[in-house]
């Protein structure tokens, strides 16, 4: 079972890579106006005056190679997701426990959630497909990092992790992190797109030519973050301290992982604040969301690899 999981992991990364190639090809050959229209239609549904809602008949472009490639990309993403799910499930079966007992498994689970959220968004709003390149890129990079620097052979839990809080605390943080991971994609592309719309034509703003309209990206960013923030609050600031109290005797002890969870929480709170403050520009708010994501990465990689703390599942390799 453990070997099967490892093999599935390799295929998962390959499938995401293939999806990425298709998205990139669509990007290169894609028919700009078609995507633009689809995006506008989506946006209109979201709150523009009622008169404009009438869906215009879809003039299917006769031979749109780009769109076909994009659809193949979506199909491959589904395939990759299925393989990814298989990787995580077989890992859990091999270890006889929930598959998030160390850093390797944690990243596998976070990216699985990210992938699921991405597919969910894509199903509800096909117009965001052009973000697929960047979503797949994020997944490939993180999975690659998991395999290269954090791989750990299957092993049972250390006693400190043997608790139902392990299920509650870690799973909610995984859910929140996966959503925030995917939330960072429209956030970054929103910044690119606003730069492009403002006339900037240097890299990376050139990428903005074919992504959905800025307003739509911004709203998607907010929706994802607003959904993930309470989950993260519960997982990191309620369930975590409850477990810490039972296990270590104090609910909060400024262990490095706790410090960085606190920092992420404060930064994401600042994002929601900034977005609700009329005098703060949406681009500024979105930058804050990206800073929040960087702090999450810092907690995942920086703290696990460089700092010594009580969180035993934070160990990369070994143990």
């Amino acid at each position: 079972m453990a070997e099967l999981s490892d093999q599935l992991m390799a295929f998962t990364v390959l499938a995401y890579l293939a999806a990425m190639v298709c998205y990139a090809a669509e990007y290169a050959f894609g028919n700009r106006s078609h995507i633009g229209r689809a995006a506008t239609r989506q946006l209109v549904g979201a709150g523009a005056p009622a008169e404009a809602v009438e869906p215009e008949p879809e003039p299917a472009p006769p031979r749109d190679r780009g769109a076909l490639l994009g659809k193949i990309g979506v199909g491959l993403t589904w395939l990759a997701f299925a393989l990814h799910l298989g990787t995580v499930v077989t890992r859990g079966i091999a270890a006889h426990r929930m598959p998030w007992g160390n850093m390797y498994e944690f990243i596998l689970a976070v990216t699985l959630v990210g992938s699921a959220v991405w597919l969910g968004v894509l199903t509800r709003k096909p117009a965001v497909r052009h973000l697929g390149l960047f979503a797949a890129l994020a997944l490939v990079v993180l999975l690659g990092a998991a395999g290269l620097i954090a791989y750990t052979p299957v092993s049972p839990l250390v006693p400190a992790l043997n608790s139902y809080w392990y299920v509650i605390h870690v799973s909610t943080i995984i859910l929140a992190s996966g959503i925030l991971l995917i939330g960072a994609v429209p956030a970054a592309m929103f910044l690119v797109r606003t730069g492009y719309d403002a006339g900037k034509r240097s890299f990376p703003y050139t990428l903005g030519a074919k992504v959905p309209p800025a307003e739509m990206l911004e709203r998607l960013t907010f929706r994802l973050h607003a959904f993930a923030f309470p989950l993260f609050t519960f997982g990191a600031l309620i369930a975590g301290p409850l477990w810490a109290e039972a296990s270590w005797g104090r609910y909060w002890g400024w262990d490095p992982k706790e410090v960085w969870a606190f920092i992420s929480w404060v930064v994401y709170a600042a994002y929601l604040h900034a977005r609700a403050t009329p005098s703060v520009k949406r681009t500024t708010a979105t930058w804050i969301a990206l800073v929040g994501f960087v702090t999450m990465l810092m907690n995942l990689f920086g703290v696990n690899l460089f700092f010594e703390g009580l969180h035993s599942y934070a160990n990369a390799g070994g143990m």
Partner: protein
Amino acid sequence: MTAVDQRPAPAAEPPPRRPNRAWALLRNSWRQLTSMRTALVLLFLLAVAAIPGSVLPQRAVNAENVAGYFRDHPDLAPVLDRLGGFDVYASPWFASIYLLLFTSLVGCVVPRLLDHARALRTVPPDAPRRLERLPQHAAAEPRPGDPAAVAAAIKAALRGRRFRTVVRERPDGTWTVSAEKGFLKETGNLLFHFALLAVLIGVGFGHWYGWHGNRLLLEGTDVGFCNSLAQYDESSLGPRLGPADLPFFCLRLTDFHATYQSNGQPKTFGADADVQTEQDGPWRPVAFTVNHPLRLSQANVHLLGHGYAPILRFTDRFGQQQTRTVPFLPRDQMLTSEGVVQFPDVNIDPKTGKRDEDLQVAFEGVYLPTVDPAGGATSIFPAEREPALFLTAYRGNLGVDAGLPGSVYALDRGQLANGELKQVSGQRPQRLTVGQSWTLDDGTKLEFLGTRQFATLAVRYDPTQPLVLGGAVLGLLGLMLSLSGHRRRVWFRVTPPAGPEAGGGGSLVEAGGLPRTDYPGFREEFEQVVAAARDERTP
């Protein structure tokens, strides 16, 4: 102030007075402080200020590491220390950021609470003249029933959807229905911010009224401890507590058990103990493990770690015997453990009854629960499969009663350096297995009788934990309401038909909707509301 203030003002403008300017400055600063931009900046500062605490070792987390940092960076460490670098979360600058933030929070949410209370009591405003200008609009449709009855039906439909509604009649025979919903958003938002305050207050009081102690406890019914500061290896009391405030209990560890995987990774830990919670009361058996502390009234006992304590018997030059059980502290996952056993009161000449300071004895070394057959210096398994002690003997002045309390886990290096304490065994440490004895050069003898296990315990109490938890849960609830709610208004105008249909009864119904916060799904809801109002039968 006084009657003077109440005199009618002189006709001429009074010259601006200085106190006014100070007052204006104060008021402006307060306004600045309680603005959302300031809150934003302070939130950022808080996040940045928290970073050093994860980079530098913290005294409250691990004092050993701080000492290590001082050793490795003798120049930098004192400077950082003066800046509070090793106590970041207790430092004045960290405190000033969060206290400013919370002042800002109070200044911000109290007025909002008042506003919100007022908003909850006011009725939704009347419909705007031109409903078609609103973001959502449903064109006028005829329906049977006179306007009053239709308006009542619409009101019932809106009430059913939990809108706050008001029906108004206009002089021209038009009826309007105003409805508003989504106050829970602001309620939730205020709940969230007040809950943050509750959490901060709870944390603060917990610091004042909480206490903790750490204790290493040997297994065995003959050894135990009772809850008092003197019994702890390390402890701290909140500033508002005295030693007499600690609750009474006594505890003895009857059995500690651990199981391991074949690779030595621990599988389970468990402690069985007897506890006495009243003076001279009965002892009652209890069990606790890593994630399940022993919860007593006003004290929780947490199991943090464990190890082995070798039992050693020393026979001195005069045939006198002393037995010691000394905890050796684990230094790796396989429980390679280090320690020292000191015998300061040996070799006392029975004739004089005087202790000879230069004939004190100590043994220092490591204990391996499972010796490496290949001869490695560390244990290869944490359970006692092939246990052995590796000791070096010292004789001389231990320096133990020089006034300074030395460590019980290491020899006084100063005494070794100045030659008052000398190594009296060979270059290689002596290996001892259970039951073996070792005769030193002067005929004295050390016997290794066996080991006992010990557990390291943390005993803690924080009286405000329920408040902090309650605050956090309410805060989460408020947050979810705040983030998922939408404030919106809907208006219906019911007019008696004009023109050809006039006089035939019936009404024309027009509707408009206004989302007052960013609300992408408003169009769907508006359409549903209009449909529900249409389908509601007139009474």
